């Protein structure tokens, strides 16, 4: 489909459904190396977004959607994920302000801005076992796909696949940011919940883009 406001809304609507569906999975990942609320937090936030999506004016752009997502997540999620996802969508919105339809370059800019926003707020580096470890591979894969001439949906598909691999790759690591860092070696063998929710969200982006 065209990567316009209809897609942006579809992405977020599907994302909300996915967070709801994976609520318990994310809670359980977070119970293992955190405090067991990540699924609840994400579900609460995206349900709140859903309630507001329809209020957007007809002439809204994708950036307006992401702005709405950002402010709603910031004011409903709480915890670490709220400010981090909120900043990600805020920076993403800024990166695509005014565009009615996103081409490959815009998509890469969007993903890069989102990732940079997370790093700005959370100060995590790659390998710290956080959501950054899903977003950075996604950005890199998107950039490579675009350089290779892929279209929007294909860029998002590359990003989603890389995010999924990135989330999985966090499993053997010790964490250096977030609650899992308190566990030292005991975090080994567990996937980072924020990386997992990030992968789910990017997969929703790719899936909706692939549809028609």
């Amino acid at each position, binding site marked *: 489909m065209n990567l316009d406001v209809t897609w942006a809304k579809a992405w977020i609507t599907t994302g909300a459904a996915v967070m709801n569906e994976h609520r318990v999975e994310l809670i359980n990942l977070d119970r293992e190396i955190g405090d067991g609320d990540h699924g609840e937090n994400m579900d609460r936030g995206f349900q709140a977004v859903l309630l507001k999506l329809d209020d957007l004016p007809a002439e809204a752009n994708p950036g307006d959607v992401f702005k709405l997502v950002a402010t709603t997540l910031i004011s409903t999620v709480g*915890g670490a994920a709220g400010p981090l996802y909120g900043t990600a969508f805020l920076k993403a919105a800024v990166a695509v302000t005014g565009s009615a339809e996103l081409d490959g370059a815009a998509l890469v800019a969007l993903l890069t801005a989102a990732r940079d926003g997370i790093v700005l707020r959370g100060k995590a580096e790659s390998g710290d076992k956080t959501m950054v470890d899903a977003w950075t591979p996604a950005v890199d894969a998107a950039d490579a796909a675009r350089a290779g001439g892929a279209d929007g949906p294909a860029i998002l598909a590359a990003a989603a696949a890389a995010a999924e691999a990135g989330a999985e790759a966090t499993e053997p690591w010790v964490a250096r940011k977030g609650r899992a860092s308190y566990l030292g070696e005991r975090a080994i063998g567990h996937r980072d919940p924020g990386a997992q929710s990030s992968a789910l969200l990017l997969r929703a982006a790719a899936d909706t883009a692939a549809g028609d």
Partner: protein
Amino acid sequence: MKKLVNDPKNVVAEAVAGFGVAHTDIVRISTDPIFIVRRDAPLAGKVGLVSGGGSGHEPLHGGFVGFGMLDAAVPGAVFTSPTPDPILAATKAVDGGAGVLHIVKNYTGDVLNFETAADLAAAEGIEVRSVIVNDDVAVKDSLYTAGRRGVAGTVLVEKIAGAAAERGDALESVAGIAERVISGVRSMGVALTPCVVPHAGEGSFTLADDEIEIGIGIHGEPGRARIKLEPADAIVDRLLGPILEDIPFAAGDKVLLFVNGMGGTPQIELYIVFRRAAEVLAEKGIEVTRTLVGNFTTSLEMQGTSITLLKLDDELTALWDAPVQTAALRWGR
């Protein structure tokens, strides 16, 4: 999961509402956004103190709102830092023109959300200072962690900084007192059982019948090490050791000894812990001049305890002794 709750989603809202009805002499409640504020706030010319964080640690923080302690508390969902909106609203509600101090426990979520709220408050012309409490010696403060956690020591920061604000100190001074408490307070905890977050419905971790978690935080997160159950005295020694080494505490020091319950431990056990802790300190020539025992920074129904030591000087002692009138801590009025 067996809990005295209705819909798990309404746990915090209903509890805060009940708290408001139970303590009308001390607090008022804002329901949207949710926060608890001192009945007589804002007090012109007095520095306002705001703290908050995920719910599930009661009486922290709502139980410490009142004369001589906090001006407002902002409860998030259970174990989830509140968002910036209620923090901002609470900050505005307590601003009496002398600025507001945010007392933040060192967790990524709390730090980020309070940071945003402070920025927004500043944009509205309110002077905000923040202090970050990080008393938990179970976590190493290094490049390889999110830093030491804020745990039960937070109560002591809130009480002593609150007394400084109540006596009329300016914002810088109140923040300075809070920083002095933070620099002199250390804690460490142990869990005998996990806790059950209402929306999760399952234990935060699983422990065998003869296992305990040493070095747990207050969010039902696993600790640094899992060991076999030991006699209370041996467990106390395990907790006190790292605390004493950390600053370090030395012979001749005067301290406040605080034995905190994690929520589900019988009081009788807390006093058994207190007895041993006092004994060890006496052996080391550290003088316990003030004490606190009870469930003040909890993890829902978790069984376990934490020990907190604070170095006292004359000024901190006087501020500790100053009158306080909150739901959970009260003396002198």
